[in-house]
């Protein structure tokens, strides 16, 4: 195995997993919150919020990365401020995770929103008459019912994160062991003569990882479906 990958590539694989997992998990709570708002509430600026969520999809990743750099870079608007309370994204793996989270966010939110909209609200009403406050209703009824959507959204976000490099490389560069993820490494290899073989090898690895994640999610989803089945 160790022959298969150079130390830098190993590091890239590890980092990719870390970044994709962190990005996906960290975006889940805000994703659920925003999906809930979009699915259920009417408020001023809702279309705006919807648009902002979709932006990373619409913008070329390079632009998203550049905007992240402007916003969360060391000298960026929020970056400078966050740095003061000890949260630094720029040129750290955390930045790569942020980039992946942002890029996967529209996919996550859409899947969640679709599921929330499909929930039978009469069940939520029933829960309320049983004494559950809105939070309890959400946690004990809505959330379990949208689990298929949560799984689907997380798979999409994770897969996206495993393939994302445009925003990542623009935001946090491509520093081996620190911000070089698998897709960045693949990208670099496609830029040099004779890099194809290496690129294909890394691509295969990335496919295998995503395949594993996908299979796991399918198993999970099947379990959930069985529980909800008619």
């Amino acid at each position, binding site marked *: 195995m160790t022959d298969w990958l150079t130390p830098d590539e190993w590091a890239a694989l590890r980092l990719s997993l870390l970044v994709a997992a962190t990005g996906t998990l960290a975006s889940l709570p805000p994703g659920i919150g925003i999906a809930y708002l979009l699915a259920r509430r009417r408020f001023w600026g809702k279309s705006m919020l919807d648009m902002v969520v979709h932006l990373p999809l619409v913008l070329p990743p*390079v632009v998203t990365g*550049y905007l992240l*750099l*402007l916003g969360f*870079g*060391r*000298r*960026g608007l929020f970056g400078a401020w966050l740095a003061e309370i000890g949260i630094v994204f*720029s*040129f750290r793996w955390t930045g790569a995770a942020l980039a992946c989270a942002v890029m996967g966010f529209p996919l996550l939110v859409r899947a969640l929103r679709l599921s929330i909209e499909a929930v039978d609200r009469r069940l939520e009403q029933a829960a309320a008459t049983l004494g559950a406050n809105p939070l309890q209703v959400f946690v004990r009824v809505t959330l379990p019912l949208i689990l298929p959507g949560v799984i689907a959204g997380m798979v999409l976000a994770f897969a996206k994160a495993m393939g994302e490099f445009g925003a990542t*490389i*623009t935001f946090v*560069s*491509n*520093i*081996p*062991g*620190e*911000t*070089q993820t698998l897709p*960045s490494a693949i*990208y*670099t*290899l*496609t*830029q*040099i*003569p*004779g*890099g194809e073989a290496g690129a294909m090898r890394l691509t295969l690895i990335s496919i295998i990882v995503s395949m594993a994640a996908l299979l796991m999610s399918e198993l999970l989803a099947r379990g959930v479906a069985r529980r909800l089945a008619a």
Partner: protein
Amino acid sequence: EAPTVFAAASLKNALDDIAGSYAKEGKPAPKVSYAASNTLAKQIEQGAPADLFFSADLDWMDYLAKKDLIQPDTRVSLLANSIVLIAPKDSKAEVKMGPGLDLTAALGTGKLAMGNVEAVPAGKYGKSALEKLGGWAGVKDRIAQAESVRAALLLVSRGEAPLGIVYATDAAADANVKIVATFPAESHPAIVYPVAITKDSRNPDASALLAYLRGPTAKAAFEKQGFTVLNRSATAAQ
């Protein structure tokens, strides 16, 4: 402490070699972040922790110089490259390189693959060479502008385009293409790869590394990848 190098992606082969031998000499192996020169330049502008910037063209080095983000006295134009006209290896295309260059016949109904003529360095050089040699007008509507010189190479290598303009270094490494002709050096601005230490670099090893890059071991590695190593000084490059 290991210095961090921000280098154009096309330098990866050579720099990986050099970093390896540098480390073998017991020095801290540099960390090299490979990306497009523009990306790296903008990152340095935003405070990236780079000690050295190794650009694939002058424009982005100048961009940082103008913003006072590099140490001017450390700047060196280290490498040179040339651009060539390529065709798929089974192509019968023949082109007479020189003033009055006409690619239309060789192109037939196909496209001329090259890097983006405004953004990608190889594309910019190719465009100015074609202009200089007079072939531009004939092909300017028939250009497939790739996102990188590698993508342009790929288009020719896959037979999508009958002709392409890429760096000699790239053409040499691809068995599916052959070099039809080499553009004369005076037909385009000098293709140089400048390197400099950044303004913010606090790493004392940065200059040692820069010196090593200019040394004989590095020279061999660069030449192995087809680059020409220049020996002009930083000021001479300007």
